[in-house]
């Protein structure tokens, strides 16, 4: 069938573009926007992917936590807030303590299964404490949606994306393109449902 052949050729074309050109990297950088590393009331590390049953964090979750701890050590905020699923928050809490962040400087939200839920949890936790200006740690591609949701929850957001240049290998680029496609779909869904 001619239509299937055209579809197959399009798939090959898109595969080549995604794997062998820097398109994914360009999109990654664009979606990250400009980091605003300014003194804030709190550093918020959003969840990403949870943790395995044995408590091992996903790559992205770990990278976000390390970024948050690094910002804390730079003295950009007095408090580090950990969000995400229960298992993820527990693992991150242990790791942050192990990396030298004092327990008194760590706050955790209750379980937030979606970014929207996390934003609601954050507003319940931080706004009553008067902590309104936050450094938001998220992946570059997640930043536009995360930032909008958290701003809608009442915060003044300073974006602090994790590393933004993106991967250089074909397989990693394909993974990133897949993540970008998912994120753009999520962005569209949130807009359609009025969440953004």
């Amino acid at each position: 069938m001619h239509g299937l052949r055209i579809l197959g050729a399009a798939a090959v074309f898109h595969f080549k573009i995604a794997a062998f050109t820097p398109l994914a990297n360009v999109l990654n950088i664009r979606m990250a926007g400009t980091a605003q590393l300014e003194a804030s009331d709190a550093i918020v590390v959003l969840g990403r992917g949870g943790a395995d049953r044995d408590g091992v964090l996903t790559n992205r979750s770990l990278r976000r936590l390390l970024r948050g701890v690094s910002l804390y050590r730079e003295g950009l905020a007095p408090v580090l807030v950990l969000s995400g699923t229960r298992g993820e928050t527990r693992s991150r809490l242990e790791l942050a303590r192990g990396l030298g962040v004092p327990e008194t400087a760590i706050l955790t939200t209750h379980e937030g299964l979606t970014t929207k839920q996390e934003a609601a949890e954050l507003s319940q936790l931080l706004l009553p404490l008067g902590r309104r200006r936050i450094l938001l740690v998220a992946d570059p591609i997640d930043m536009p949606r995360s930032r909008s949701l958290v701003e809608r929850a009442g915060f003044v957001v300073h974006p602090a994306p994790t590393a933004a240049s993106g991967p250089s290998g074909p397989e990693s680029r394909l993974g990133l393109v897949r993540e970008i496609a998912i994120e753009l779909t999520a962005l569209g869904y949130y807009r359609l449902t009025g969440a953004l």
Partner: protein
Amino acid sequence: MGLLVIVGLVALTSVGAYIVGTRVLALERVSLRPALGEALECLGLAVVFLVVNLAAGLTSIFGFRALTGRFVSVYWLNDLSLVVLSVLEALVFHRWWRPSK
């Protein structure tokens, strides 16, 4: 550099396969073009299966959420195995469908 190695390797083995095909297996050169067309057809079918699988997955997840009120993550669908299985479905379906053409 890694990129060049991968592309170079695939180019090299493709040339090797062409030589083996024409000289050892005595395959006709003219049948290469239709074979490429069939391969693209199969890939197109894989895309169709992938889209259908994703649509079915999303419908099931949102349906489950609506019916039970319990949370199931759509990220469950973010798995490379779904792509591989869609390709397998396409391969089998294509082989099944092809003789009837």
